[in-house]
């Protein structure tokens, strides 16, 4: 079966319904929730605060430390609780994705802790986590040069699509599935995070960047609205996945 339409009926460049909200964790300095359809992340920020052990401190700048935690019940078959090689890598790329837009020189010797929980997973969990984390940083009032927004672009068979689901990620027919999560800065469209799994020709790679720019612009609008206090919940029921 060739891939001519998306399993949930979306347009190729259409995002899933979005949920976005700030202030979901009262104790935190900043917090946010972000959902791409049924992929749901919450993030909380604590800091800047003194970094211990002290030998990790940087005299000229602060550090961002991220912790991505996919909860055991967020996936269909229970995931083992606690850190895994996968979660450690995602934590690292998340910290990297956020660090370049935060003015860390202002906070020498400190750390900003970003804690991310994935409550429900249907692909694109790292992107939902980064989107929530970026909002939580802004919500904490931490000085940022610009926002970042994150989206997983896919090449499913020969189509470039935005915000892919598990079903699309697992596509095997035709050219199969390529999963390309991007994180872009809101104004300058710099890439702060890029990963790729699958198979895509160099000639089509720029197409995926263009799709990411378009999708991230939309996501940025949601992030801004939520940061202004709006509670966004587009609980639009999509056509059930076939």
């Amino acid at each position, binding site marked *: 079966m060739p891939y001519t339409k998306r399993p949930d009926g979306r347009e190729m460049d259409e995002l899933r319904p979005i949920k976005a909200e700030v202030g979901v964790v009262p*104790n935190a300095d900043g917090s946010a929730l972000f959902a791409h359809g049924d992929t749901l992340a919450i993030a909380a920020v604590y800091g800047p605060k003194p970094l211990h052990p002290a030998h990790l401190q940087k005299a000229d700048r602060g550090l961002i430390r991220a912790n991505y935690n996919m909860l055991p*019940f*967020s996936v269909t*078959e*229970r995931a083992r609780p606690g850190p895994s090689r996968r979660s450690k890598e995602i934590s690292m790329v998340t910290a990297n994705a956020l660090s370049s837009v935060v003015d860390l020189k202002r906070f020498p010797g400190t750390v900003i802790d970003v804690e991310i929980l994935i*409550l429900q997973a249907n692909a694109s969990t790292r992107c939902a986590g980064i989107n929530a984390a970026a909002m939580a940083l802004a919500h904490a009032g931490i000085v940022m040069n610009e926002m970042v927004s994150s989206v997983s672009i896919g090449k499913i068979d020969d189509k470039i699509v935005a915000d892919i689901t598990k079903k699309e990620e697992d596509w095997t027919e035709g050219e199969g599935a390529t999963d390309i999560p991007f994180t872009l800065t809101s104004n300058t469209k710099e890439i702060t995070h890029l990963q790729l799994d699958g198979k895509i020709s160099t000639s089509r790679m720029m197409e995926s960047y263009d799709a990411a720019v378009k999708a991230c612009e939309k996501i940025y609008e949601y992030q801004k609205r939520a940061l202004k206090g709006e509670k966004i919940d587009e609980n639009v029921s999509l056509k059930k996945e076939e």
Partner: protein
Amino acid sequence: MNLPNINKKRIESLLSQDKRLDERKLFDYRDIIIETGISGNAEGSARVRIGKTEVIVGVKLGTQTPYTDHEDEGTMITGMEFSPMCGERYEGGPPKINAIETARVVDRGIRESGFIDWKKLCIKEGETVWSVAIDIYCVNDDGNVLDASSIGAVAALMMTRFPVYDEKEEKVKFGEWTNDPLPLTEKVPFAMTIYKVGDKLLADPNREEEDAAKARVTLAISKPGKEYMINSMQKGELDTINGEDLKKILEESEKIYDKIFPELDKQIKSLQK
């Protein structure tokens, strides 16, 4: 991390007049709000808020070989983590002793009450039984996470439905569900914790009150008939309680049970529909 508790003296002096910082009575709970169905891939899930305290709980079912001393009974495992998200004092890493204690106290209340009909979780005696995994995460700690965890675990279990089990292949088809609920009984265990601050007893402390407490007692109580059955008990923290305290705790626990838990049970049952 030990944070200075600047309100401790004030809490204690107010308590000597039977008063609290937020003007509650000694054994009053803050508002308890339960939501269910918070995570669609879990077999059952719930969010419980007690005031600003929030926990989320998910139940996953799987299969395993039974323990040799209970060859026809299902199994249960309860995990709990204070996510570093839930407060300034928490750090990452494997669950620490307070999280382990919370998980074990919640686990015992459920296990000992007979709330789950273990024999109905047997698929093939001696070979395959259902395993129930309860995972509790604290998202925001403003005191009394223990009671919130127990209420959340009960709510999530009451929402749990079985995934499809392929008898021929002898394995679970994860991501496909039946409408069959977990086999539960009327012996619904609810845990409540009474704290001792100075020489006063109180329920449902906020974070500052909990920090000021020197001892606590958790009781998981079910009431299948007319009697209040204590299914598990645990005294926590360093200080002692005396016989008078224990008597008072038992008296108050019955009152708290009647005041709070039938209402919660009703709240959860209305969410089941």
